[in-house]
């Protein structure tokens, strides 16, 4: 058997070594059609191979990647699968430069060359891992979905946890909002809803499941934000409702007829209120990297906030969230007054999911026509505000005609990850974009699918992408055990 395998490997190596790029071919003046589209993108030098399928007509294909600083990889076939070792060597050699990509297609006995394109190789590394949720686009019901982790440098993809670990035919288990403190996996959290519900908070070797719902708050914790240095997590608490459009292309509206902000003190097991203005809807908190500011989205619209829930539902497209912030003193644990950071309401737009770059300079957010849940809003785009100059601009190179939202910074602030529905309007895919020192984005590229034909991913959405610099430390079984424990009731602190 081993001999047989050896022969196969040797033969494959011989075939691949013998692949030559047909020189002097006629130009077809035809752009290369790739799936995923990796033409003229900016990629980190430590990214796993960007395999793709060629969509242009032809019987045979040969693709050549030539580094401006040297190195060459040639791959034959319509499905361009690049060896990990040679790809990494090529990118390493061409850091800060670019790859020229030529594709030759064999048509009616002749080779023709498609239009060349380039792949720009950034010197800025991307974080090693991406933790994301993989699920199909259902709305209320689900049986099987998982949180997964992709090693961005090798492409290896593993399950972190799946909701079938505590299967119950009568009641489902949902898990969401995994989030890591500073992109490290020592301290992180995720919510489990329904079966064995609670918020799982992992701190080092310890894990605690907490019920964050108290009599004084409107829900358990929802959207989390770990304080960068303290054992504190800010959460929004949301009374969330879904509405289904009968004919609107958006199909679904997720609305919070009430929402506030709380903070959970891990050591004291205490919940306290950060913002609960009855005239405003506060949600999606995030900390500044120095931990001295808490940013969040807030819709201060008394004319709507005072309406009954059903009436708020009717006003779904009249609710506009601004981005605001409050100062925070880690010693006294007191928050300052609310300050307006980005006035979206005056533009009749809604700004969500504030994320501050690690150097504290840029505020990244998604801007949509209205409401809170931009993943369902086709007009949603990513925007940046320079917190030093006050200048605001859209990330044109990263954005698309469809919903672009749910974004995050890499630990070095040179990459953003976000979700987009640009491919087909329904299934959310994860995209990366390079951000230069001036806050300008490079053309976004898709997280390589888990198989080259994309079959494995074609009816799945990737959402809640979170960078981490190291792999998740727990196995599926570890997490299952942790989730099995009873939830501890958090205390409410009125201070």
């Amino acid at each position, binding site marked *: 058997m081993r001999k047989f395998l050896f022969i196969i490997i040797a033969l494959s190596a011989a075939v691949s070594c013998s692949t030559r790029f047909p020189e002097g071919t006629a130009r077809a003046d035809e752009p290369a059609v790739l799936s995923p589209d990796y033409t003229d993108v900016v990629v980190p030098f430590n990214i796993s191979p960007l395999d793709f399928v060629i969509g242009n007509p032809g019987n045979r294909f040969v693709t050549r990647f030539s580094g401006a600083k040297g190195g060459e990889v040639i791959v034959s076939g319509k499905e361009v699968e690049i060896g990990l070792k040679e790809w990494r060597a090529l990118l390493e050699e061409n850091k800060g430069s670019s790859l020229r990509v030529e594709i030759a297609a064999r048509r009616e006995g002749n080779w023709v060359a498609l239009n060349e394109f380039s792949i720009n190789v950034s010197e800025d590394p991307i974080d090693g891992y991406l933790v994301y949720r993989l699920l*199909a686009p259902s709305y209320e019901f689900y049986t099987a979905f998982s949180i997964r982790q992709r090693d961005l440098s090798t492409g290896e993809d593993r399950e972190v946890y799946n909701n079938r*670990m505590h299967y119950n035919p009568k009641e489902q288990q949902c898990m969401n909002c995994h989030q890591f403190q500073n992109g490290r996996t020592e301290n992180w959290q995720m919510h489990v809803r329904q079966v064995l519900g609670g918020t799982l908070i992992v701190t080092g070797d310890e894990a605690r499941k907490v019920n964050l719902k108290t009599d004084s708050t409107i829900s358990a914790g929802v959207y989390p934000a770990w304080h960068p240095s303290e054992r504190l997590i800010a959460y929004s608490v949301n009374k969330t409702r879904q509405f289904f459009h*009968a*004919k609107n292309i958006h199909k679904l509206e997720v609305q919070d007829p009430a929402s506030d902000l709380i903070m959970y003190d891990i050591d004291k097991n205490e919940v306290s209120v950060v913002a609960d203005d009855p005239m405003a809807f506060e949600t999606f908190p995030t900390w500044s990297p120095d931990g001295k500011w808490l940013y969040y989205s807030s819709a201060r619209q008394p004319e709507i906030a005072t309406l009954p829930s059903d009436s708020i539902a009717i006003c779904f497209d009249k609710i506009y969230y601004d981005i605001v912030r409050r100062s925070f003193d880690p010693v006294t644990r007191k928050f300052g007054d609310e300050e307006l950071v980005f006035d979206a309401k005056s533009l009749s737009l809604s700004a969500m999911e504030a994320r501050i770059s690690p150097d504290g300079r840029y505020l990244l957010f998604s801007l949509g026509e209205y409401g809170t849940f931009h993943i369902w809003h086709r007009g949603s785009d990513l925007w940046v505000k320079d917190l030093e100059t006050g200048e605001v601009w859209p990330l044109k190179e990263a954005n698309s005609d469809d919903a672009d939202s749910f974004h995050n910074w890499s630990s070095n602030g040179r990459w953003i990850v976000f979700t987009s529905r640009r491919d087909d309007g*329904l299934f959310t895919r994860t995209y990366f974009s390079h951000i230069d020192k001036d806050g300008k984005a490079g053309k976004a590229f898709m997280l390589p699918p888990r198989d080259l034909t994309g*079959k494995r991913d074609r009816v799945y959405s990737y959402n809640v992408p979170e960078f981490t610099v190291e792999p998740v430390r727990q196995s599926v079984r570890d997490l299952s055990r942790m989730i099995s424990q009873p939830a501890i009731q958090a205390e409410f602190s009125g201070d």
Partner: protein
Amino acid sequence: MNKTGWIWRALVYAAMALVLILKLPVIRKLFELSLWPDMTFYLNLGLQPGFALPVAGSVLTQIGGIPLIGAALVILSLALLTLVMRRISGPGFITIIPATLAFLFIAGFDYSLYTFRSQGLLFSQTLGLLCAALIIWGWTAVSGKRWSFLYPIAAVLVGYPLIGVHALVAALGIVVLSLSRKRWLPALAGLVCAAFIPLFYTHLVFTHVDTAYTFAAGAPYMDFVDNHKRFIPLGLAALSIVVIPVFKGKLNSAWLASAAMAAVAVVCVVLFSYRDRNFHIEIAMQQAIERNDWDKALALAGRSETPTRVVVMYRNIALMYKGQLCDKMFTFPNETIDIDTPAQISQTEVCAPAVFFYNGLINYSARWSWEMSMMFQRTLERYKYLAKVALFTGKENPALVSRYLDIVGENLYQRKWVRKYRSYLDNPALLDTDPEYVMFSQLDRFEEIKYMSSAVVENTLLSHYLIQENPEGVMLDQSLAAAMTKKDIEMFWYYYDILLRSGRPIPRHVGEAAILFAYIDRDQAEIDSVAKDLGGQSSPIVSRFIRFSSEASAVRPGSDTSSFKKKYGDTYWYYCYFVKSLTTN
């Protein structure tokens, strides 16, 4: 051994075949609720112990997409099971017991099939039992060898990942057989293997699997929620495979015993098959609707004296397409009953994608197709609705339509279907020749509205049609039908006025409702006006109503209304007075 055994076996199989022929639409439905096995699906979920059974079961279900072939495959798989049992246990008639029980499991599929989470269930469990029997047969061949104790170890080691609990059934069969022959070592090996190898696998290999179900892997433990009696034949079939081999040579049936057992088997096959009339009518109606065979759908609707609301909704779709909704909807039975299931299965799970699609609420059709795909399993039927919805909205990305069509096209017997809808994608002008699209275009004429939930299909539909302002054409018919169904007099008059202004002829039931509601309002001017609308006092509707009202006033509460029904059961008046409430479970 008597030589007539084959006759009795043939008799039992003939009974099974007959039952399956009566259930051909159900076999077709199981095909529509299946999907060509896509290994990426299993890879996404992580392979589970017993994964080979749903894969093989799905393949066979797909091949059986032509129901007669499906029925033949079912009989063939059961015959194989009997054949293997005969190899193990000799020619005794009891060898037919596992196949009979396996058949009863299949023939017992009720409303639960809409909520199956296991794939390929039409075949997977029979295949599992067949594999278990084959393993036991294999052991009988090697049982005399000194190393035979290794056989159960190998069987469970290899079998558990592939066929799950059925490998344990085989191991137990080996244990029982070994004990009966006083061969202690293989018995011990089989017992230990059955107890520990699954734990080894679920703790060290299938680490993403809930260990609570270690000893149920490969069995449909996710299905038949609150309906556990459906497992009884399957459990007994497994038990019979374990026990029957012990009786080898001891129960060579006499003629009379064989005949008696065959009779019992035939009676069981007939009696314990699921025979709910509405269940079978609903399935056949949906299939007729999807073929746009409206006459067939209506003929089926007429077969149920006490239909479910699902039958009523399907019937109304067919009437709408024939332009007869408000002329004939009350000529069919309207005294409805709940769907017959001990499980919590709602009309939504039974019919939401189809009913919403054919009523023009295509976003909800797509929504429920996805919800059920995720809650239960992805199916061909659900992908077809998703593809049609994505195509009909005209606003979706063509890549999405193409994605769905690709998936549908991977299934057997779908080439023509995919070709048709891909032609619409390539040339959208062709959509205007599609009767479903033409009807959708008329039903889509409403202002955007959003609902908290559309979980109760008929309520959502009725509410939808009753909030329409100035509807026209089919939408007006639907609004009038909804007002009549809900007995909403105020909304009826609103839509009635629109109908009069439109100059369209007054449909029969609308006329009946108008004269009745005018009578209820005790407004003589209104009665005269309606009578005039209907052609005067001598018009058939008015004169019949006069007879009805005088006879109805004589009916006492609780008295027998059957003769009344015979006379007026085809009128709106009967519905309004004697059909009390909707059962929209």
